């Protein structure tokens, strides 16, 4: 029920977007989102609403930090 999924915006018409994940597309409303988003951005969609924008920079940063800190040789 809490299901919320990261989806990519494929089109936008005012406050309505179509977003896609794994080939499934869904309509969602931007009514609850304060940040500006455009086609190509990722948002978290829950119950028909985009509730948060996913920050690609932070995502990359998190992953590279993880890989750096938790590199294989370090663990031996």
């Amino acid at each position, binding site marked *: *029920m*809490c*299901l*919320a999924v*990261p989806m990519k915006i494929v089109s936008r018409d005012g406050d309505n977007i179509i977003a896609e994940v794994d080939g499934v597309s*869904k309509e969602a*409303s931007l*009514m*609850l*989102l*304060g940040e500006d988003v455009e086609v190509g951005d*990722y948002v*978290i969609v*829950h*119950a*028909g*609403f985009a*509730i*948060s*924008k*996913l*920050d*690609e920079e*932070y*995502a*990359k*940063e*998190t*992953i590279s930090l*993880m*890989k750096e*800190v*938790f*590199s*294989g040789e*370090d*663990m031996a």
Partner: protein
Amino acid sequence: MKFQDEFRDRELVQNMASNIHRMAERLTVPVNFMEVCGTHTMSIYQYGIRSLLPENVRLVSGPGCPVCVTPIGYVDKALAITEDTKNILATFGDMLRVPGSSSSLMEKRAAGADIRIVYSPLDAVMLAKDYPDRRVIFLGVGFETTAPTIAASILEAARLDINNFCVLASHKTMPIPMEILTCDPDLKLNGYLCPAHVSTVIGGNAYKPLAEKYNIPCVVTGFEPADVMQGIEMLLAQTLHGKSKVEIQYSRAVNWKGNPKAQAILSRIFEPCDAVWRGLGILPGSGLAIRPEFAEYDAEQMLSLNVPDAAENPACLCGEVLKGKLTPFDCPLFATVCTPESPVGACMVSSEGTCAAAYKYGR
């Protein structure tokens, strides 16, 4: 960047596990970290995270599945609504199987009641528009992730001048139950993996009073396996350094302030109220009630729903499972009498319920 695959990298997760093992050697006593959110519980079972952790780092499941904490009296009210043929009951799918005291919505629907599953509360508003002679009642359950979507739908109904739409609201809010659980001497909690999507709305700052007042580390953590492992590692690091602060692991989606627009819409429609949590009882200020200005959208005000007090099935240990005191495996009904097809308690219904997650992945 799909925001998922890289956070599921096996080797990365294994390396993180080794690091956690190393850190855990420095612990003098075992630690108990609670994953508050049902989606964490699901992910932890699905990816076998418990099996990657050392024995002295324990994860306990918390009350963060909204379907599971919904009291039986609420289900009884929903059942009562279906008695009137004028009504159309609209709901998210996973409320259907939750047992009330005499029946479930699933059984009512099989017997002919008009119950529709919707994906978004906006779909329920559209239903009301399409059936002007009927009354559409939407079951409003969920935490701060969901409550703004329902608030927005009420505003949309008002904008479209739709007056045959209302909400039976039983929303709950987050940091308060964590406070109660922190104080529970039986649980001895040492840290929280804080809810991820709830925090997109309320922001990391919402946990600061909790962390400061009770000296308990809080890390807002994402749902992928590498997120969960990093969250655990951050909690361990705080524990080992004697720190108790709020950190945001899930920085790609959560910031300190949350989503102010969603917060504003939420508080335009809802105000705090006392709420009954299955397993935890009445917690002051932990629920959301529709404000009197919007009473025409409040099913409690518009319909007379007098249902007798009901008690949960005494054999179901959901209450203890929701507090993290027992695991589903401690329940004698688990996987025998109680299964997802015929659940005894709500924890077996929702896919985020601890019992359902344990049934699907944990045996």
